[in-house]
């Protein structure tokens, strides 16, 4: 057989295997992040948090998840059934598919593309379609309001989010996450070079995935549960999963872009070789990622929610100009010092 065909076939097999693995990985990821949210939030509120299911209540979020699997699945009478059914799937797949390009450890990436940054932002933005459709199809005014809020919010925050990354891209001269990490191996973590870019990315990312203080989409004191109001059973479970997976992914991308991905911090050797290197990389990658997950939960425990118009105002009047300034300064620095 033609070696090119074999190579293509092998690539396809590798791709399918990797995607399947990652799709399966989303489930424990969601459980772990959900469990952290339950426990960390409880500790911050001076509570114990779940401590009955399993040792230290470790399986509580898994139990919540499996419970939803066994709940009755209701479709409201006048809902638009096809879109109502598809919406959770769209939101979940947007989150799960963007996991493909995350470099977990040296060589451990499902889809190592030259344009993985562009792929990532194209895919993660798709979840807005799911939210909007969910809001529209539920035949509920709270859902509709939530869906429209989601659309407005995500469309606004895509721009500062993307612009804050362009700084890193200009700096590293690459659109591949793997190469961005490798650049940081030589030049130090990008946070050092992107002191303005990082906070912009962090805020915009929180808005992008509807975390507090930007959770107007699911503002349960205003519009009961936003687009998810009419969803029950596992359809709601998909939204629930997608929320946590998206939180994990955003933290992972944050770590990849600004905190050196799988690289260990300074006094330690940044990277090892062989299988031990993979484990070493994975360890540091997950450690840093889950640190930022905790930070996001910390923010949730502390801050109230901003209003829709304040959110938009912040995106267009605050973050966007800042991101442009950051981009300009970065470009100037790159040109002047010829990095």
């Amino acid at each position, binding site marked *: 057989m033609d070696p090119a065909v074999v190579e293509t076939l092998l690539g396809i097999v590798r791709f399918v295997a990797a995607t399947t693995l990652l799709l399966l990985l989303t489930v424990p990821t969601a459980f772990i992040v959900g469990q952290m949210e*339950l426990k960390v939030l*409880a500790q911050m*509120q*001076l*509570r*114990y*948090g*779940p*401590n*009955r*299911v399993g040792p230290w*209540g470790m399986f*509580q979020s898994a*139990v*919540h998840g*499996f*419970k939803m699997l*066994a*709940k*009755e*699945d*209701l479709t409201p009478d006048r809902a638009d059934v096809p879109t109502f059914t598809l919406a959770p799937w769209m939101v979940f797949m947007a989150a799960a598919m963007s996991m493909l390009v995350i470099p977990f450890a040296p060589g451990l990436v499902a889809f190592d593309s030259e344009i993985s940054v562009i792929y990532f932002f194209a895919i993660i933005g798709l979840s807005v379609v799911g939210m909007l459709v969910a809001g529209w199809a539920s035949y509920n005014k709270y859902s509709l309001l939530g869906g429209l809020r989601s659309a407005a919010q995500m469309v606004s925050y895509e721009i500062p989010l993307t612009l804050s990354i362009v700084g890193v891209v200009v700096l590293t001269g690459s659109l591949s996450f793997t190469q961005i990490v490798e650049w940081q191996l030589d030049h130090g973590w990008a946070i050092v070079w992107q002191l303005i870019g990082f906070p912009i990315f962090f805020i915009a990312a929180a808005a992008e995935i509807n975390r507090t203080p930007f959770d107007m989409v699911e503002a*349960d*004191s205003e519009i*009961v*549960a936003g687009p*998810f*109001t*009419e*969803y*029950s*059973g596992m359809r*709601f479970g998909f939204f629930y999963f997608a929320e946590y997976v998206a939180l994990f992914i955003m933290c992972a991308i944050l770590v990849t872009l600004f905190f050196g991905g799988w690289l260990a911090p300074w006094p330690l050797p940044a990277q090892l070789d062989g299988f031990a290197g993979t484990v070493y990389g994975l360890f540091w990658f997950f450690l840093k990622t889950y640190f930022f997950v905790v930070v996001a939960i910390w923010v949730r425990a502390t801050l109230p929610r901003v209003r829709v118009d304040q959110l938009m105002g912040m995106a267009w009047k605050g973050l966007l100009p800042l991101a442009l300034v950051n981009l300009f300064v970065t470009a100037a620095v790159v040109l002047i010092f010829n990095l």
Partner: protein
Amino acid sequence: MAITTPPKTDEPIVIPDAAGDDPLLSEFGMEAHPQGGFHGLLEVIPTRADYILDLIRANSLWPLLSGLSCCAIEMMSTATPVNDMDRFGMFPFRASPRQADVLIVAGTLTTKMAGPLVRLWAQMPEPKWCVAMGTCTTSGGRFKRSYSVVQGVDRVMPVDVYVPGCPPRPEGLIYGMMKLQELVKQRRGQWATYADRGPELRSWEGDVR
């Protein structure tokens, strides 16, 4: 470990099964229980998938964030640091009935509120349970004589656990919820019978004034 619900007759019903004769089971020290099922060494392994499901359900009871009156404050107090209901997996109070498992009717039910409350109950997906918290919900309590109070929430919807008190202490509500967990594990909750009762017995749905 409750494997099956004990039948209510006095004389033991021997359920015919081959467990007693099964050499493999005997080897593990298992023998048939007069009331059905087995008991012995292997008992630690649940023999029914349903039972795992019941365990999962019992440990993940999300209450609906719906308080009617005074008891609602004590219900919230149950979720707060002093009496942390989250320990039992009961914390995320869902605002939408579509995602809730337990309806804690906390407070006096008035005739005007009865219709909306029954709608809430109907909007919750199966399996679902109802806890009547406080004397007002169980019987009308101190407002029993009033012209606008429903004398007990069980006149309009099925109730699984009654928690007495006016209002009950948070510990009382937690105790009631743990009783509900027992019901769920033994499949004795309303929802199990609800599905079997058939439409003609569900007249409570329309019987709201």
